[in-house]
Structure formats: C-alpha cells, structure tokens
C-alpha cells in the first residue's frame, strides 16, 4: 500500500523529481564512465602499463571527493522537493498515518528515484564509456586495435557505493524533516510565504563596492606577490591573506550585486519605470538572500574548474609542441659526475664504500668516454643469457657533449651565474627560482670545439668565438630565455678569468641547446667559452651526454627493445679506478614521445573530469535554485498576466533574471581565472613556454555545452512553470 502511494507520488511529482533525477543520473553516468578508465586504457593499447593503474587510482580517489560534492548537491536538490511537499506530508499525518509510515513512504520515493537514476545512469554510462575509449585513445595518441564492448564490475561497484552513500545522506535529511516538523507547520508550509527581508539598497550597493574593491586588491596582491612556490612561511601567509580577501570579496560582491543593480537602474528613471524592468530587478533583489551565497560559491567553483582545466590542458599542449625539439636523437644517456662535496660525503660513509679496501670516490679530472663506459653494463644480468651492453651494435652516428661546472677547482664562487646576468640587464629572476640558491649556482660551461662538434652532428653551422667570444644556450623557454636574449642582444661584456668576453650571437638558439631526449627543456643555461679559456679556468666536469642515432639498417623498434631490456649498470671510473660519477636518465625518442603522450593524456583527462563534474554541479545548483525561485514567484507572474502583461514579456523578465544568475558567476569566475592563470603561466613557462591556444577552445566548448545546456533547460522549465501558473488562474 505504502509502495503504491510512493510510486504514485513519484509519478505525480514528476517534474519536481525531474531535476533530482537528472542530476543523479548525470552523476552516475559520469562516475561510471570515468571509473572505467583502466579498461579504456587497456583497450586503447596504451603502452605504459603503470599509467592505467595510476590513472585508475587517481580517478577513484577523485571520485570520492566528487561524490561528496555531488552528495551536497543531491541534498540540496532534495530539499527543493521537500519544501514543496511539506503540506502533503502534513496531510498524511492528519489523515492518520504515523510518522513512521510517512517516513517509509518518503524513503521509498527516494529509493525509487535513486534506483531509476542508477539504471538510467549506468545505461548512459556504458554508452559514454565506450565512446570515451576512442576519446582516450586520441588523448593518448594511440589507435584502438581491437575494440569490444565492455562492462566494468569495479566501476559499477564504486558507482553503487557512492550512490548508496548519497541515498543514505538524503534519507537522513528527509527523515529529519518529517520527524521534527509539527503537523501545523507542515500544513501551513504552502501558505507561509518566504519572508522577504529587504535590505536597504544603499547598504547593498555599498557592500557590492566593498566586495569589488576587495577583489581588485586581491588581484593586485596576487599579481605582485605571485604564488608561494618556495613554501616560505612569509610567502604562504601573504598568499593566504590574498585568498581570504578574494573569497570574502566574492561573497560581498554577490550579496551586494542585486542591490547595486537595483540602485543603478533606479537612477535611470526612464529605464526603471518601464515595462517589467522594476519587477525584474525586485525579483532579483528579493532572492538575493537565498541565492547570493551559492552564486559566490559557484563563482569560486567555476574559477577552480576553469583554472585547472585550462592550466592542465595548456601544460599538456606545451609538452606536445616541445616534444619534437626535446627529442633530437634516437637515444640519449647521461653521466653525472660527483661534485667535490659529494665525493667527501660518500668517502666518509663506510656503508657506501664498504670500509677499508673498498671503493674510492673521486672528483673526475677529465670527462669519461660514455660509449666506453656503457660496455660495462650488462644485459640480462644474472641469467644464462647475460652479455655486455653493446651500444656500438646499434649505433650509427653519435656525439658526446661534456659540460663543466662554472666554479673552478679550489674556488667558492662560479665565474658566471644567473643572478649576476639578471642584474646586468635589469631583469627579475624567473618565477619559481629562489634568489638565495641561485647566487651560488652558476651556468654550466661548454667548450667551443665540443659545441661545434655538436652543431655539426646536428647538421647546423658551427660558430666562431675567437679568443674573446661567448654565447649562451638554453631550452627552458621564455621565462629564462628573456634574460639570456637580453644579455646576448645588449652585447653584455663578461669578465671571466681576467678575459673580457663579448657575445657572438644576439639571441639564444633554442633548437641548438638540447642534449637529452626529454618532455621538458632540461638545459637551464650553458655558456659556451673558447677552449683556451676553459683550460685556463681548470673547471671540474659536470655532466656528459651521449647522443646517438641508430645505424642505417637497424630496425628502430628492435633497437628500442634492446635498450628497453633489463640491464645492470656498471661503474664509472677514471683511469685510476676511482668512482667518478653515476648513470643518469636514459631515453629513446620513442619512450619520450610515449611519456609525453601519457602525461598529456593524464593531465587532460583529469582536468576534463574535474572540470566537467564541477561545472555540472554548479549548473545543477543554479538550475534548482532558479526553478524553486520561479515557482515561489509564480503567483507574481500570474498577477502580471492578469494585469495584461503578455506571456512574451513575462518570459523575457524571467530570462533576464536567469541570465544574470547564470552569467555573473561565470564572469567573476573567468575574471579570477584570468588573473590566476597569468601567474600560473609564468610558473609553467619555466618548463618550456606555455601557449594557451587551441585547448582553450576545446575547454570552452565543453563548458558551454554543459553550462549552457543547464541554462536552456532551466529557462524552458521556468517558462513551463510560469505558463502553468497563469493557466491555473484562467481555468478557475
């Protein structure tokens, strides 16, 4: 019997439940689809296996967070329904149903809707997850070799658990309404008009201006102070104050917004006393108490979504465009030499040296022959198949690049460092580089002859330094190159080792500055000096790079596979047999491309997931608020109709109100994002220059579809509510 009642109720209150159902269905769809990521990655034949697991893990973690967001949203949507139906529940009690029975009816209703949402959501989620597989494949730049339809039990499980949690929370809230409310309150709920607390519009306008001022102050602070990358307490405190200022500013902004608009329009008498303008403004002002806080919240959420999506996708974009420059050869490997202090530390530690008669660490006198050293590595070590690593067997042309430290042996300070260069050209240090650390850290040094060998290897024209020339290399993008370009362009004289040097190039040649295969630029600054000067300075080696192209006739896949085999790394020693360095990261062109693609995919994926869910949540909250607002005000619209206002004019008024509600949070959110992004981009540039381009277009499109869709639905449903309200009167 109760079941029948509940079913009937759901059917009857269909429209009220529609928003709830829609939002819950969407949540289920998104949860399910995104949690099938590991299967999608499998299907898309994405090489790196760790990625599927780590991505799956991150998504599951995120889902919990987003489930909480969604949970709040559902409670909100549910309250909207409950508000509407208090009277009905009161009536049940008057007719003799116990509170327990009423509660059961309600629980059943919630259950029916949730179950419907689950079924609908899973069906849609299945379709979405299949579609997304292709999207995932394109994000990770792979092809789908063997597509088949799939169903993920684990994704279903996660989704059901989240839904159950949401269901439980909603139920608790509903039961509280029934348990707490007195029958008389329930019965009169419909008539109890929402108290219209009117605030003095002058005060509201002042609040608005204060909020606006606070936002501007926060913007200026952020632009001046930047982000606290170094994590210093002072920086963090500044950042915290800025954050609090912008949050408070945003809230005040929205609390004062309608009052301000009201005052502004009232000042224009001809406009205010015209058509439904004053009704529109008053309706806005009347709802401000209930809505302004959530508008502020939504502005902040949108800000988060826009910033994370744009920054994430731009970062991915950067990697994509720089990967070609970042992979000059088929294979690179690095030897990192021990510095003097490291050598002392290592020698002092018997657990590393093995005590008396063990190994001895030493500073290298000369760079080692990297190709030679690689023969000491063992492929398939510990098996019967063990054999020396034979790079020569796959190598065609190769080149070794040797970089030296810029602090001469026995000296304390480098001969050239970034801070001095900045001061020379009157530029700030790049964001994210700490002033105290940089003064001791010099640029690395390269011999002219070695660099010309490198240039020939790369098929480029050699440079001539003569006895008093220098040039600077870097592939880290605008943030540091702006300094180097200025140094070279202004012909800054450098005095090194008693010799005055002049630049021979007028800007950094980024394409001729890369020594390793990598996703990002790795060369933050290398100065090329005449050989005689380098000899004179007596500099210790810093790193040696081996850059190698596969020989003609060698299948690159086979070569990659050979390099990819498990290997035991050998010691790197000088002629005396002392350990002078360690192997650094090696990379093939293929592996670099792959890691760029997966990193790329990962970032885009997470950005879209978070952004999408946040935007949907925001839009759903606005929709629910608007719909409840419209039905609260439907009496007013009916009166307007009776006074002879056309339906078109009423719809127009509703549209204007809703546009303000939907557009202002976006405007504020976008403004926040632009300021924040301008800072973040500065930071990201350190990794190799950021271009916000095509990705933003894509992001905007997704955003518009989701947010705009909700806006359209809201407007159309509001129109329906208003039309019904008008017709009710007419039919009486």
């Amino acid at each position, binding site marked *: 019997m109760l079941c029948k009642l509940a079913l009937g109720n759901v059917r009857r209150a269909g429209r009220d439940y529609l928003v709830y159902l829609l939002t819950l269905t969407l949540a289920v769809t998104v949860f399910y689809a995104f949690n099938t990521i590991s299967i999608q990655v499998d299907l898309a034949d994405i090489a790196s296996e760790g990625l599927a697991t780590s991505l799956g893990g991150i998504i599951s973690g995120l889902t919990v967070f987003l489930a909480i967001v969604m949970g709040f949203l559902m409670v909100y949507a549910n309250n909207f329904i409950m508000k509407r139906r208090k009277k009905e529940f009161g009536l049940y009690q008057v007719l003799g149903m116990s509170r327990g029975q009423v509660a059961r009816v309600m629980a059943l209703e919630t259950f029916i809707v949730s179950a419907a949402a689950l079924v609908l959501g899973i069906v849609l989620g299945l379709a979405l997850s299949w579609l997304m597989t292709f999207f995932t494949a394109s994000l990770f730049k792979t092809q789908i070799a063997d597509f088949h339809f799939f169903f993920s039990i684990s994704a279903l499980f996660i989704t059901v658990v989240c839904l159950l949690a949401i269901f439980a929370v909603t139920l608790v809230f509903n039961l509280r309404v029934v348990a707490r409310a007195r029958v008389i309150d329930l019965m009169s709920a419909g008539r109890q*008009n929402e*108290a*219209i607390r*009117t605030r003095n519009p002058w005060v509201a306008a002042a609040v608005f201006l204060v909020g606006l001022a606070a936002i501007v102050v926060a913007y200026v602070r952020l632009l001046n102070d930047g982000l606290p990358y170094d994590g210093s307490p002072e920086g963090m405190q500044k950042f915290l104050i800025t954050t609090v200022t912008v949050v408070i500013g945003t809230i005040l902004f929205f609390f004062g917004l309608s009052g301000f608009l009201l005052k502004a329009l009232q000042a224009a*008498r*001809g406009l*205010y*006393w*015209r*058509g*439904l*303008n*004053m*009704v529109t403004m*008053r*309706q806005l*002002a*009347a709802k401000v108490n209930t809505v302004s806080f959530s508008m502020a919240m939504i502005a902040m959420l949108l800000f988060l979504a826009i910033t994370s999506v744009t920054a994430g996708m731009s970062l991915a974009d950067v990697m994509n465009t720089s990967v070609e420059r970042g992979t000059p050869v088929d294979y690179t490997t690095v030897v990192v030499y021990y510095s003097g202090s490291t050598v002392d530390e290592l020698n002092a530690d018997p657990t590393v040296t093995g005590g008396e008669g063990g190994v001895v660490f030493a500073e290298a006198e000369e760079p080692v022959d990297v190709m030679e050293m690689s023969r000491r590595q063992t492929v398939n070590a510990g098996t019967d198949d063990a054999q020396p690593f034979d790079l020569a067997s796959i190598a065609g042309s190769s080149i070794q690049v040797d970089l030296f430290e810029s602090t001469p042996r026995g000296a304390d300070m480098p001969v050239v460092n970034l801070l001095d260069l900045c001061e020379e050209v009157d530029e700030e240090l790049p964001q994210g580089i700490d002033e105290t650390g940089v003064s001791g850290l010099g640029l690395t040094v390269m011999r002219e002859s070695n660099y010309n060998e490198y240039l020939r290897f790369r098929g480029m024209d050699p440079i001539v330094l003569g006895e008093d020339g220098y040039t600077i290399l870097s592939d880290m993008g605008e943030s540091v190159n702006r300094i180097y370009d200025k140094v070279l362009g202004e012909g800054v004289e450098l005095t090194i080792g008693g010799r005055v040097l002049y630049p021979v190039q007028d800007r950094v040649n980024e394409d001729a500055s890369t020594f390793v295969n990598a996703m990002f630029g790795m060369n933050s600054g290398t100065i090329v000096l005449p050989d005689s000067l380098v000899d004179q300075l007596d500099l210790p080696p810093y790193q040696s790079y081996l850059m190698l192209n596969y020989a003609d006739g060698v299948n690159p896949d086979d070569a990659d596979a050979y390099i990819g085999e498990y290997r035991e790394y050998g010691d790197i020693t000088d002629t005396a047999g002392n350990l002078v360095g360690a192997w650094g990261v090696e990379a093939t062109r293929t592996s670099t491309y792959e890691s760029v693609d997966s990193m790329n995919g990962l970032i885009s994926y997470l950005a879209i997931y978070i952004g999408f869910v946040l935007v949907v949540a925001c839009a759903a909250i606005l929709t629910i608020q608007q719909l409840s607002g419209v039905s609260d*005000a439907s009496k*007013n619209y009916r*009166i*307007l109709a*009776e*006074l*002879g*206002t*056309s339906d*078109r*004019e009423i719809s127009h008024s509703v549209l204007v109100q809703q546009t303000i509600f939907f557009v202002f949070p976006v405007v504020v959110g976008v403004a926040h994002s632009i300021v924040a992004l301008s800072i973040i981009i500065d930071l990201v540039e350190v990794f190799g220059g950021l271009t916000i381009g095509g990705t933003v277009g894509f992001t905007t499109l997704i955003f518009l579809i989701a947010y705009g869709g909700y806006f359209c639905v809201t407007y159309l449903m509001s129109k329906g509510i208003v039309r019904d309200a008008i017709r009710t*009167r*007419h039919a*009486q």
Partner: protein
Amino acid sequence: MRKQTVQADHIDATAPRVHMTLPTTPRGGAEAPRHAAPAATAQPVLDVRHVEKVYGARNNVTRALADVSFTVARGEFVGIMGASGSGKSTLLNCISTIDAVTSGNVLVGGVDVTGMKSSKLTKFRREQLGFIFQDSNLLDTLTARENIALPLTISRVPAAEVLRRVEATAQRLSIAEVLDKYPYQMSGGQQQRVAAARALVTDPAIIMADEPTGALDSKNARLLLECFETMNHDYQATVLMVTHDSFAASYTHRVLFIRDGRIFTELRRGSSTRQAFFERIMEVVAMMGGEGSDAL
C-alpha cells in the same frame, strides 16, 4: 504576425470614452450629483447580451450562466449578488475575458470581446479593465508605489507621467503614506486600497471587483467601500462589484441578483439613503434564500 504591444498611442486607444484622463484635474465633488445613477446614455460601457456558459461534456453538463443580459452605463457603480455557485464569479470572469463564453456577446466600450484573439485580449485587458480581487494580489516584492505603477509601466507610459499619476491617485485614495512600503508592511485594508489604486490608475473603462471586502474586517471594509465611492464619484470610474455582503452592496447604485445562472432581479438605489437601500437588499436576499438566508 504578432502584434507589437508597445503602443505610443495607448492612451488614445481609450478614446471612445468621454471622461478626462486621470488624475490631472480631478473633478470637484460639487459638480456631479452624488447619488444620481446616470441614466443609460447612448452607448453603455458594458453590454452583456444573452451570455451562456456551459461546463462539462455531453452527458454531464453544468449550465453556469443561462441567457444573462444587462448593461452598465458609464460612471455607474453596480453590484452583483448571489450565493456561492450561483454563477456570479463565472459572469465576472466572462466579462473580464479571463474565461470564454459558450454563446452570447460581451461588449466593452462598444467592442465585442468574445471573439478576440488572445494577443489582442492581453492588450484589451491592460487598457480597458481594472481588477480588484479578494486577496489584494499585490506583487510582494514591489513597494506600493511600484505596484500601483505596474499597469502603467507595462503600457510604456513615460516615467515622469507614471510617477505623477501614481502620486495623485494615492493622494486621492488616502494611501500616500504607505507608498514606499512593501505589502507585508501594510494592513489588509491598506493592501486592498493599493490594489484599488492600481486598478484605477490606468483610467480603465470598467473596474471589476471580485469580493473585495471578503478578507477585511468591517472597519477596513467600510474604508475600502468609501474608497470605491470616491473612485466612482471623483473619477467617474465605472465599477462592477461581485459580493455576497449586503452591506457592501448597499454602497452601489444598482444591484443585480443572480440565482442558478440567471438574473433573478435588480434593485436600484435611486435617491434613497444607503441605510434604506441596505434594508431593501436584505429583503431580496431573504426572499431569494428560501432554503435558508445564510446561503448568501
């Protein structure tokens, strides 16, 4: 094609009516005889001809109105009385174009409204009719001033003109002091008088009042009715009031009694006092309510 509702000449649209535009120069009380119901002049402002209203399908027909005919002259204050279910509200809805008649015609200012299209009806309602309901039906988000101004702003009357007319009407109906209050800050009587001002401010051909005193205590009811008298007398507003309260009806010039969808009888006040008219109304009510006079 959809008709543009913004009409610069909307005031002229009410041109067929003779009396002056409100309330620039309200006519002094001395010029018009206080209780003389104007005789039906050449063209009545309202002409109801053989109106019939039938609800329901073939086998279950309810005849709410059966062949109702009457006229209301310009500047008349007419009451319609009847028990609940007698058809008086249906009649008002049919006249006010909120409901459609089954057959017959309703002419307002000589224009037949029964065949009008809905877009035209909206404009007609806005310009020719004023409404006062039992619950004041004010917009709760607007101040009294804005509520009264609403019909004018909807008709795109210039702002200065709007404010002047609102002010003058409010002065006339003694509600100037509540102009900047919201409905929830006013008493029920004040709300009803604001609603009356809103109905009056557009200078409509006819003002329809549906049980306007229904929700008021006797003191506020009297204030409102005196307010109607003022409207009728000072502004020559034509008022059609549906009520089941004999006391309220005694303020009118003429009362139509409706029973079972037909006009049962009609009383004219003539030159008698309000008290005498009230007693005559009570007699008819007692006569009509054969099954119990509390039916009214």
